[in-house]
């Protein structure tokens, strides 16, 4: 008897070797299996400052449904979130709030800049006194999703790119993106 190779889950990062008598042997690395778990349970923070938030809601709603890819629920508290999707314009008054939310999140934490405003200020780049020219002036960003606003498919693509990034991480060589960020390193 025993389980055929990879019969239970087809994206398991490693090998399951049937050992007979119901006992199987699993071959993998801790990094791989932990990253596999983390990348498939990314909970995002409710954070929408303008129209991109509508597309983000649509990405979470029934038609596109990011739960299918492991972004199970969105959380209203930064303490329970792994991911912040910056969906909208960041103004000077919002910047310290965004930074505080980021600082309150538990590590490891990830950031997606969604849409032109969050990437560079977008349509508000020129001649405005109030808009931050890119959320990466405030917190380090992992994935940039261009668009104005991006379609839900584009956001899903960005979120899956972030999952791929997480799968390459290693516990031994941890990198915390906020280290040296304020010094411009």
């Amino acid at each position: 008897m025993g389980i055929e190779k990879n019969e239970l889950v087809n994206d398991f990062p490693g090998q399951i070797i049937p050992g007979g008598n119901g006992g199987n042997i699993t071959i993998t690395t801790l990094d791989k299996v932990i990253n596999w778990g983390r990348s498939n349970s990314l909970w995002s923070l409710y954070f929408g400052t303008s129209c991109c938030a509508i597309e983000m809601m649509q990405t979470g709603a029934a038609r596109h449904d990011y739960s299918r890819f492991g972004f199970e629920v969105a959380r209203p508290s930064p303490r329970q979130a792994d991911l912040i999707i910056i969906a909208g314009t960041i103004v000077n008054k919002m910047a310290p709030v965004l930074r505080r939310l980021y600082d309150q999140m538990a590590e490891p934490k990830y950031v997606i800049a969604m849409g032109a405003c969050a990437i560079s200020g977008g349509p508000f780049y020129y001649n405005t006194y109030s808009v931050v020219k890119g959320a990466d002036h405030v917190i380090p960003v992992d994935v940039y999703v261009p668009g104005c606003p991006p379609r839900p498919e584009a956001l899903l693509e960005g979120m899956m790119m972030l999952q791929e990034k997480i799968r390459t991480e290693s516990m031994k060589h941890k990198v915390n993106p906020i280290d040296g960020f304020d010094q411009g390193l």
Partner: protein
Amino acid sequence: MDLTKDYKIIGMTNSELQTLINSWNFEVEFSEAESQFLNITVKPENLHQLGLQLKSNKETSFDFLFCVTGMDWGTDLGVVYHLESTTHRHQIVVKVKTSDRENPTFDSVCDIWYTAEFHEMEVFDFFGIKFNNHPNLKRLFMPLDWVGYPLRKDYVDEVNMVIK
């Protein structure tokens, strides 16, 4: 209440309004160019009196101030008031302007239409237009220590603005 009857009320036409307001002798200018409303431009010293008259007169009865806009026309600063009557359902626009950019001041109309209190705070915040007799004139959206009035055409901010 007979709603169907109310919907038939269209109030005074623009020309009727113009004739009536002309008879009050407030030295106003009328214009209907490029506008769905009758626009009247009034001198700053007559603004408050005209507002009182527009609201209290039984025929006009403009009891609803639905929009207050600060304006910078390049040389002149001003305020635009959109008025409606909830009984007659006619509308009118009152404009007031001044060429004084250092210390532009108008009379507050928040004692006539209470909603003007917050609208005038906003106009003060972005255009630096002051309002006499306003109970609480301070910055509404901008940080309290902000210097300058960002929606003026001649506003410069070398720190935050990328000029194109």
